[in-house]
């Protein structure tokens, strides 16, 4: 691939966003902005495909590096502009491209302040891409925090329900977590033996990364504490029980495309951070290694899965239901990560690969679920499950794809969710049998809440006291072809990975092996 591919990929959406905001004027501006933004997302998607395909699996390691040694002209701050992808980040970059494109199409029906909306949406994409390709801790942190601004604006201005409350809650939670992370970053940076912000080693450029330097270094703060700081930041973002309560609110009140992005890629920044930083940095630090806490990680993961699943069962708002199910499903990510406690690297690798695949697959499946709820909500103007029923007859396409998302979420084979879950279970069971066995019950809960929702909303007859008036019900229409574009974009990877998982797992495995060394 060519020089600067990653820089272009990351900053293309932001550049278009700024240009559009500055220069788009005139009568037809909304329509033009919509098309320009979709085009920008499409190009970004194409670029992420190039990144993914261009990543040479035979070579492995960090590739497509963009390096500028001193991007902040302050001598004391040895932060460099260092972008690159490895097996861990390449699939997530692709995932961001897929979801960015789907989100742009899913925003087709936005009527209010269109120009601003797309500006924030594109800026959000840049922020997320930046997180996945940054290999400098400060740069990573900046992207990680920058994502809050577009998210806040998107929820507040285009959200429903209690958007201010939800947006503020989201921001406060993430900021609080971010503050811990910053302390962690500083503690690593000020350690004399480390003194760098490079997250990985790149021998060709003479860069020695934190993982190597931290091994055996005398850290400024106890390693366990630094680990904890990062862990808190990512646990909030993932989110893990008991710091999950921002997620249902943010999801419920966000506009459809933003929910898609939130579930699809924003949560994955946390999983990525856990893998890259918590697992990558703390393999053999003094006095503390990741192995010491793998057991508690497995337990808290099992709690997240079961607690999230049980609370999901009693939700009556479709979006809230899916949001809570995300808590349960992201618990599987944590469960897979806890396999790092295994004595043999090979055993860990299976669980970690499962966790990584679960991130990818949850992105597409839950993204699709939110998309379908959005399409249904656009027509019925309610998400209250007891008010709905018998929608299949009126909107079969929406129902079918909702069912596909539901089957994906309950782990049906041939869809990608199953592959990820079985990998997590197989990889983790030999390490932590009891937490895994408990968490596996999550698949029964998932069948319960998913099929309950499908039955109530799409099957059966309309409820006796209908939430929809006869007129609304009679005039319900199925998805149009424009609506179907993002649906297909998200559904395709679910099937492809479900049938042919090695298309992603082979790449993830390269990154995982590097993390585990």
């Amino acid at each position, binding site marked *: 691939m060519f020089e600067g591919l990653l820089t272009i990929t990351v900053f293309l959406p932001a550049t278009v966003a700024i240009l559009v905001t500055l220069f788009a004027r005139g009568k037809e501006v909304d329509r033009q902005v919509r098309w320009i933004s979709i085009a920008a997302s499409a190009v970004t998607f194409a670029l992420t495909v190039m990144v993914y395909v261009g990543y040479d699996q035979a070579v492995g390691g960090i590739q497509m590096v963009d390096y500028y040694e001193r991007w902040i002209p302050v001598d004391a701050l040895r932060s460099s502009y260092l972008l690159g992808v490895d097996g861990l980040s390449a699939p997530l970059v692709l995932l961001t491209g897929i979801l960015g494109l789907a989100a742009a199409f899913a925003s087709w029906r936005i009527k209010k302040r269109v120009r601003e909306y797309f500006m924030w949406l594109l800026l959000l994409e840049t922020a997320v891409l930046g997180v996945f390709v940054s290999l400098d801790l400060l740069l990573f942190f900046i992207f990680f925090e920058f994502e809050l601004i577009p998210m806040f604006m998107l929820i507040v201005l285009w959200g429903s329900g209690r958007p201010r409350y939800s947006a503020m809650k989201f921001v406060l939670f993430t900021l609080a977590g971010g503050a811990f992370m910053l302390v962690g970053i500083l503690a690593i940076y000020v350690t004399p033996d480390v003194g760098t912000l490079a997250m990985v080693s790149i021998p060709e450029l003479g860069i020695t990364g934190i993982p190597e330097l931290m091994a055996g270094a005398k850290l400024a*703060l106890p390693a366990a504490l630094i680990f904890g700081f990062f862990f808190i930041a990512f646990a909030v973002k993932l989110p893990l029980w008991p710091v999950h309560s921002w997620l249902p609110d943010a999801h419920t009140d966000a506009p459809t495309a933003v929910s898609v992005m939130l579930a699809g890629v924003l949560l994955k920044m946390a999983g990525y951070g856990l893998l890259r930083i918590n697992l990558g940095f703390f393999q053999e630090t003094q006095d503390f290694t990741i192995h010491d806490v793998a057991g508690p990680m497995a337990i808290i993961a099992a709690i997240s899965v079961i*607690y999230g699943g049980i609370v999901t069962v009693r939700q009556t708002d479709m979006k809230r239901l899916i949001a809570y199910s995300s808590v349960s499903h992201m618990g599987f990510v944590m469960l897979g990560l806890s396999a790092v406690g295994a004595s043999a690297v090979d055993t860990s*690798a299976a669980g970690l690969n499962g966790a990584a695949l679960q991130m990818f697959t949850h992105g597409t499946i839950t993204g699709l679920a939110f998309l379908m709820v959005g399409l249904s909500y656009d027509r019925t103007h309610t998400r209250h499950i007891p008010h709905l029923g018998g929608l299949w007859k009126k909107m079969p396409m929406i129902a079918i794809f909702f069912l596909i998302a539901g089957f994906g979420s309950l782990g049906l084979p041939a869809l990608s969710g199953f592959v990820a879950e*079985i*990998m997590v279970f197989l990889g983790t069971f030999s390490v932590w049998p009891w937490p895994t066995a408990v968490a596996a019950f999550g*698949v029964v809960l998932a069948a319960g809440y998913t*099929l309950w929702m499908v039955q109530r909303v799409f099957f*059966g007859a309309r409820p006796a006291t209908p939430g929809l008036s006869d007129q609304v019900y009679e005039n319900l229409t199925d998805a149009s072809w424009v609506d179907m574009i993002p649906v297909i974009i998200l559904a395709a990877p679910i099937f492809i990975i479900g049938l042919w998982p090695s298309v992603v797992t*082979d790449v993830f495995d390269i990154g995982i092996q590097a993390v585990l060394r």
Partner: protein
Amino acid sequence: MITEGFVWLIIALPIISFLVNGLLVRAFIGSNSKYAGYVTIAAIGASFVLSLMSLATVMSDGPLDFETHHWIFIGGMDLSFGLILDQLSVIMLVVVSGVSLLVQIYGQAYMDGDKSYTRYFAYMSLFTASMLGLVLARNVIQIFVFWELVGVSSYLLIGFWMDRPSAAAAAKKAFIMTRFGDFGFLLGILYLYSIDPSYMDVSKLYEAIGVEAITASMATWVALGLFAGAVGKSAQFPLHSWLPDAMEGPTSVSALIHSATMVTAGVFLIARFFPLFEHSNVMTLVALIGGFTAVFAATMGLVANDIKRVLAYSTISQLGYMVMALGVGAYAPAIFHLFTHAFFKAALFLGAGSVHHASGTFNMKYMGGLKRHMPWTYWGMIIASLSLAGLFPFSGFWSKDEILGHAAEVGATTGNIVLALGLIAALMTAFYMFRAIFLTFHGEWNGGGEKEEADAQLSGDPSPVGNAHSHLGESPWLMIGPVTLLAAISIFIGFFSNPVVEVGSIDKHAFAHFVTVENEDVFPVDEDGGHKAADHAGAAPKFNFAVAGISSLLALSGIALAYAMYIKSSISPSSIGARFRPLYNLMFRKYYFDELYENLIVSKGFYKYLADALRWFDEHWIDNANIHLSNWVSRIGKSGVLIQNGQTQTYAVGMVIGVIAIAAGFLLWG
């Protein structure tokens, strides 16, 4: 004779049919296109031919060994899929594809005019493919994959008329209840994988058991998990209650998934892992659960008024027979019973559909006297019922007797209990089947669907689901053809496939010999060339005249009792019902298991005391804690506003103090 590619085609053809129907026919020809049926019949017909070829190959050359293919192959994990074509899988292949083919032919007429005709055939294709994939799967994970696909396609088929709330509820119930079993199955797989990942390959597992690499306690835990899966799928007690509700699907669906396939998947699973089960300590449990279910389900069949539900209970009961047979080690008789049962039970379900076609109802109280109008259906069902009741010389007689004979031979406590339960179930089976026959075909016509509808309106009950107008007369040939053929098969298939004496070119006990002695991976040959394991599993049973005599006598008395009650009316059913009112109610209300599960455990226990409580906890404690925390922060922030004087130095001092405080705190207490 048959190569790996052809065997893959057995699965692939119905999948192609699913895709063609679901994507092309539905979109470009129509949602009720005749072509959907043709495509499906062609695909499954070809699968059937290939299955027969596979059978012939295995019969002549023994099991075939194929290569495996990597599915997930990364550091630390290698999941490879492949095919296993042994005696067990070829028998299942022929049964599944054969019955499926006849059901598809029948479906053309039965589903004629349904606006979702294409969708029906698409689902049927998917189901058939999943089931065929299941029986051919070589890797445990692969078995689980197809197992779940069978589950989902049956979910779609049971809920086929999803605009009926009862159908949607039944589909969900079936899926979730079987998922409880699947959870056990999954845990069994996980444990097996953690012992050694290579055991995911079934043939490696057989080898490992052969050399005792797996201890009995390991085998017990794994087998317990797998058995949980089988209990769910084969509707054994206590996960039985989904199956009667599953009759909400089209009758042709019931004929396929509740006779030859899906519900037999559980039995198949135990058979597939038979060496593991034999090696474990769960066999007694398997035998007792199966035996108990055989009687327990039969009692509910005694009082059901819906003809399909009678058949549903009968299926649960017969599956119990197979499970208990496996539990006492009677591998060959169990598979043999699975084989014969598939034909006569499919005939009965298809016959029930034909009856519905004429009477417009499934409620036997509104039928009667149909014998005159539909002689083919009548005689087909009579033969199938005689076979199910286990009367000489019909096929059910031979297979049922082998099970009972084997139990008698095993003896001891378990064997005798199983034998007793089997005999009781045999009596009940004969009674409820002939009760159904007499109510449906004999006596006077009771008005059919319209009458039931009118009665419901009169008494203010909700109108019965799925009723249609009655038009007395024989069903079209596309429907009675399969019924007649299946009934004809059930006359002789039992004796001729597994004769107790040598008949012409057919060896004595050919079937039993084929599935045991010839399957050397599962039943290894002894060092001295003997077949102890195979003999132990019923390879060459002795015909037990005493058991056969008693069970035939019981079956005959069951029929006689039904005759006395429903034809001669010399014993009044209602007075018996009145005398044993509590018992009758208990059976009629299905022992209140639906109430126990749905009202008590799910609604009260799970929803109210667990889920609602947790939800409340989440909203009032977890969420509020966060809000309180943020309020505190803002209070602290307000009090700290004095320090916020805009001077960087002050902030820097604050930060330094903070960092020192944290560091100091850690040094002191850390």
